[in-house]
């Protein structure tokens, strides 16, 4: 079967693929929640292997990264950094997609039980935008799919609060990979079953291994509504860890993302040890990126010297986390993501100050494809999902 370029397909092994003329084969593995690029020369061979047409793939880098979950045990995985898989073909300068985004972040709802100090979506939350109804959800989902994203990240707010979560997942299922960002508070048994059924990867947001510290950064909002809370602890860390353990027990794909702030940055190696021993094999660390006019800037912003120190420290300590994919994202430029607000507007983070900008002011709900990468930097976008600033390669 011949795959058309720039269209997302699901292979028989369950992996999502999209061929990109300039780049090669973009692959999203629902078993790890990670995105990789395969060199154009290895594309055909890899596709046949993922469709069980040839049983063996000769290149171990590709096998170790993409075979996890269906051809290999999770513990046997090895994920090169950056996520460019070289086999027979080798890149001189690694390219990135310039037309269609790899990932679209959909802020499914503005409601959230937490009030994180560094939250950069606060301007879209807590009834500042109208909440969508079922019809809106279908419409927004179909508009998102027009841009052929390999992965749609359901975010918020707390996406698990959304009454239309199931509808949304059903709509996206098999058309794109789905990742859900959650604090874990509402991940009850019913929700876990839903996510398992539709092969949604769960990404937990945890900032610190110290309860007091994590709870002060990711504090539970007093105004929260609590029907369907999975855990009843007042600690957001405890809720997250308990949900994470239950998700593991039910064989969901689990990863963790951490926003590193001035308060928490020194605890990261210790935190990594705990996560690794719990079985986490994918950990994304975002060094907090706040505009200077944010009231918490001084308290949370990680000084440049500490950034360097922690990068070198983590590079040393990650040697003992064999088989764990560690991405450290130092987003000094904030124009890396394509965002969709709860009411369906396509947005990007402002690089200059607070707030968001429309991708296409003439057509905010369905921007012109050429205008997407005018406001969002394609290089920063690719680096966020395929590369880590801690690695040597800095783009083509």
């Amino acid at each position: 079967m011949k795959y058309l370029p720039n269209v997302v397909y699901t292979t028989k092994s369950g992996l999502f693929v999209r061929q990109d003329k300039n780049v090669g084969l973009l692959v999203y593995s629902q078993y790890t929640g990670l995105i990789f690029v395969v060199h154009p020369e290895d594309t055909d061979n890899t596709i046949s292997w993922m469709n069980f047409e040839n049983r063996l793939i000769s290149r171990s880098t590709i096998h170790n990264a993409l075979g996890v979950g269906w051809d290999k045990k999770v513990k046997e995985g090895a994920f090169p950094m950056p996520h460019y898989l070289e086999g027979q073909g080798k890149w001189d300068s690694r390219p990135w997609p310039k037309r269609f985004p790899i990932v679209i972040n959909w802020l499914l709802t503005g409601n959230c039980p937490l009030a994180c100090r560094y939250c950069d979506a606060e301007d879209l939350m807590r009834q500042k935008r109208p909440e969508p109804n079922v019809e809106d959800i279908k419409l927004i989902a179909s508009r998102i799919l027009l841009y052929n994203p390999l992965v749609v990240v359901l975010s918020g707010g707390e996406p698990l609060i959304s009454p239309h979560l199931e509808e949304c997942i059903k709509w996206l299922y098999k058309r794109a990979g789905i990742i859900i960002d959650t604090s874990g508070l509402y991940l009850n048994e019913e929700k876990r079953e839903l996510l398992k059924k539709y092969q949604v990867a769960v990404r937990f947001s945890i900032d610190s291994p110290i309860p007091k510290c994590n709870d002060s950064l990711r504090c539970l909002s007093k105004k929260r509504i609590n029907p369907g809370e999975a855990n009843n602890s007042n600690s957001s860390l405890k809720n997250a860890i308990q949900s994470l353990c239950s998700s593991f027990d039910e064989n969901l794909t689990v990863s963790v993302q951490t926003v590193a702030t001035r308060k928490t940055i020194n605890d990261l190696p210790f935190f990594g040890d705990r996560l690794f021993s719990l079985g986490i094999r994918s950990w994304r660390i975002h060094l907090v990126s706040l505009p200077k006019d944010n009231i918490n800037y001084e308290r949370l912003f990680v000084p440049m010297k500490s950034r360097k120190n922690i990068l070198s420290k983590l590079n040393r300590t990650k040697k003992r986390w064999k088989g764990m994919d560690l991405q450290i994202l130092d987003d000094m430029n904030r124009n890396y993501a394509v965002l969709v607000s709860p009411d369906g507007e396509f947005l990007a983070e402002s690089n200059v100050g607070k707030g968001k900008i429309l991708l296409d002011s003439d057509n905010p709900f369905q921007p012109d494809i050429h205008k997407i990468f005018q406001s969002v930097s394609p290089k920063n976008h690719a680096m966020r999902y395929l590369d880590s600033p801690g690695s040597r390669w800095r783009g083509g």
Partner: protein
Amino acid sequence: MNTNNKITLSKLTFLRKPYRVLLENELSCAVPSEKCGNHIVEQLEGRYPILDPMAGYGSLLSLCSKRGIPSVSIETNVPRYLWQLIKNPNLSQIFIRIIDRLLDEENSWPKVRRRADVSNSWFLIEALDIVRRLIKSISLSLIERDVSFEIKPEIIAAAVIVPFCGRLSCCTESENNPAWIKKGGIVVYMDWESDFKKYLNALKVHLVEIADRSIRGVEHKVILGDCRKIRFKNVRFHSFFTSPSYLDRLDHYKMFGPEIAFCNALGIREIKPFLSTDYIGSTLVRRTSIERFSSKVVSNFLEYIRSSCPNKSRKNYNKIYCSYYANYFYSLFEAYKNISQFLHSDFVGFIIAQNNHFRNTEVPVAQAIVEMWKSFGFRGRIIDRKEIFYFEALNLRIRARGIKAKQLGFIIKVTR
């Protein structure tokens, strides 16, 4: 010494750093080299047993056990005392038997359903339950075998389990600094059995080594007590070889936070009085008693601290640093004064002291010790001094390079 059998414990076993270091290295970091220790012990020939009133991790005990010299070690810090029990060659065979039995009964170790949990306290009930059950099983095996000796079976069991209990605590540790530890964190129950097994195997290797290299039939006494208050009936020591606690402004009590909390939870009557925070070199200062003993050296040093501080932080200097140093020196004075009552007229003692730096000036620990002993009517003199480098300065404490990393090591001889 055969070091080939040593088992290296990975950081991922979550065994606490102080114990990983102790299991991997022969001596803890602040003690003299083996060569220097042997040289001093040779000079104390015929004046046995050798007393160490501040025994720490038991370096004198290990030195004496190799040479077949009787020793008496006193330590007030419970986790350190328990570690000395492990180092005592007279108990090695008992410990080895306990470990063998524990390993044989692997299938009956307590099971935990949860993968992990979070708490703001040192221990969760589930974790305490695991370690308590292990202690109970060890104590019962000791009673069954009808082992009767002066130490309680619960204490022997605690000596085996305490180094491991940190693995099941909800603490957050620093990557490098062993004294930095915070209450509250994530405890991972998953695979605790395999980590416990690794720990037991490493401990067994350590014990076998101790048993092999020690000369048998020599009495080594390890006493849990505070050298400032301890009393000996009809005993006069002919020698001592000791080293005061290291003055690095790190809280060595807090360093064993989970272990002390665990010992507290065990409720063993004999060790409970020693679980307080009042020990020599504590950073939790409750009194400033410098006025109660007159020491020129200490007064000058404290005066320097007061005068050298910027006006802005004068209050902090007086409250924190002056109180801390004054408390340290006074505690040392109290300890030596108490010990001096139990020394024979022909006694000879050696003290190893290290002077580090505070705000570009030397902290005169050695000079103060000499002055203290002189005030008790003894002769004290510095017989050797050398410049040493702070052992972790190059790797860890970037700020401590240069003069702040340098220390002076002294050997002080005390005689009547």
